């Protein structure tokens, strides 16, 4: 092997022309970057952790009862914002409501409007045709750090009558997340019912609706029928 090749002393170029040249190119690119830097107007300003923690916080929901009471008292700290289209808005809306169509949420005026409300310690109550319609602009505004927004847990239809006293007195709970039927119990009841022998009826948790059933068909025929359906 060519050992004699290695006796040469290694030479490193110490010239700095090329590196200076390279650095200047990079500096020019950075300068261009600054020139073309467009400030992003709208960005999420809250942390994901906070948003996840807020998922289950009920403070951001407004029930129709609370809103009705506020409307009765003409509470100035709550400003209703209608996120439906101007057309829907023209057909009917809550008193003193501001129409901000959800599609047009991002314009300086609208964002400024919410920021002004925040300065004035006012709360914007978003509502739409349904709770989930109001939820979309609500979540976006909230994640942008405008946290003085709440959403109505029902659609406009419920509030349509304009009879605030009656709505305020209504005891109906409008929580989307409450399981409305105890399905587990329901299914187990159904299985008990479907058992042909009498053992099931002796069972302790007797279903409330256990009217004596005349015919208890097993589930199989129903499944069979389903095949034709599909």
């Amino acid at each position, binding site marked *: 092997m060519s050992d004699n090749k290695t006796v040469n002393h290694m030479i*490193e170029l110490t010239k700095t022309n090329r590196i200076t040249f390279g650095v200047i190119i990079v500096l020019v690119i950075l300068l261009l970057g600054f020139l073309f830097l467009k400030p992003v107007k709208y960005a999420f300003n809250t942390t994901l952790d906070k948003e996840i923690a807020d998922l289950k916080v009920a403070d951001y929901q407004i029930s129709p009862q609370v809103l009705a009471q506020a409307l009765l008292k003409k509470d100035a700290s709550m400003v209703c914002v209608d996120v439906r289209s101007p057309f829907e808005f023209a057909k009917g809306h809550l008193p003193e409501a501001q129409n901000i169509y959800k599609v047009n949420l991002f314009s300086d005026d609208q964002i400024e409007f919410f920021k002004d409300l925040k300065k004035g310690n006012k709360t914007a109550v978003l509502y739409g045709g349904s709770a989930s319609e109001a939820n979309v602009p609500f979540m976006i505004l909230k994640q942008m750090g405008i946290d003085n927004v709440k959403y109505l847990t029902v659609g406009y239809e419920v509030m349509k009558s304009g009879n605030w006293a009656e709505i305020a007195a209504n005891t109906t709970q409008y929580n989307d997340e409450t399981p409305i039927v105890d399905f587990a119990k329901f299914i187990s009841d159904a299985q008990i019912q479907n058992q042909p022998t009498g053992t099931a009826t002796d069972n302790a948790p007797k279903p409330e609706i256990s009217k004596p059933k005349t015919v208890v068909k097993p589930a199989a025929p129903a499944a069979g029928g389903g095949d034709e359906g599909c």
Partner: protein
Amino acid sequence: MKINPDKQHVYWNPYFAGFLMGIILLLTFYLTGRGLGASGAAKAIVTQTVHTVAPTHTENNTYYAEQFKGGKTPISNWLVFEVIGIVIGAFISGSLSGRAFFRVQHSPKITSRRRLWFALLGGALFGFGAQFAKGCTSGAALSGMAVLSLGGFIAMLSIFGGAYLFAYFFRKLWI
């Protein structure tokens, strides 16, 4: 190729080389979202070979099996292609300055055989250690440091720290 003895031992200004390497690393991150690396290719080769010889064995070993997740073949790993590129690039640079020919480089105080045995030992240790850290000097330390990753800084400090720790005992090999 004619070897130009003047050019053979002339290397770039290290700052310039480092600057260019930084730009390449930057491009890599910009294009692919990942860093450069090398030891991953060795891992892919080993896994693929073992898989070809004993497929059931790779399925039982979690370390091998991890690389087959999602129907991937380890040998078509990004790093394998990158390593092929490194070989080509080094060859181009080496032949342009007359460094590309077969030889063993070692200190005049030791024999070629001794140098090769230690290279094998060093390689084995490096391969072994790189698996613990999930990357080598380029994959873990350099790319990790570029994104300010905590792991990258720890890797860099421990590689160089470890080397300084043991450097004294192996000085005969080099100087």
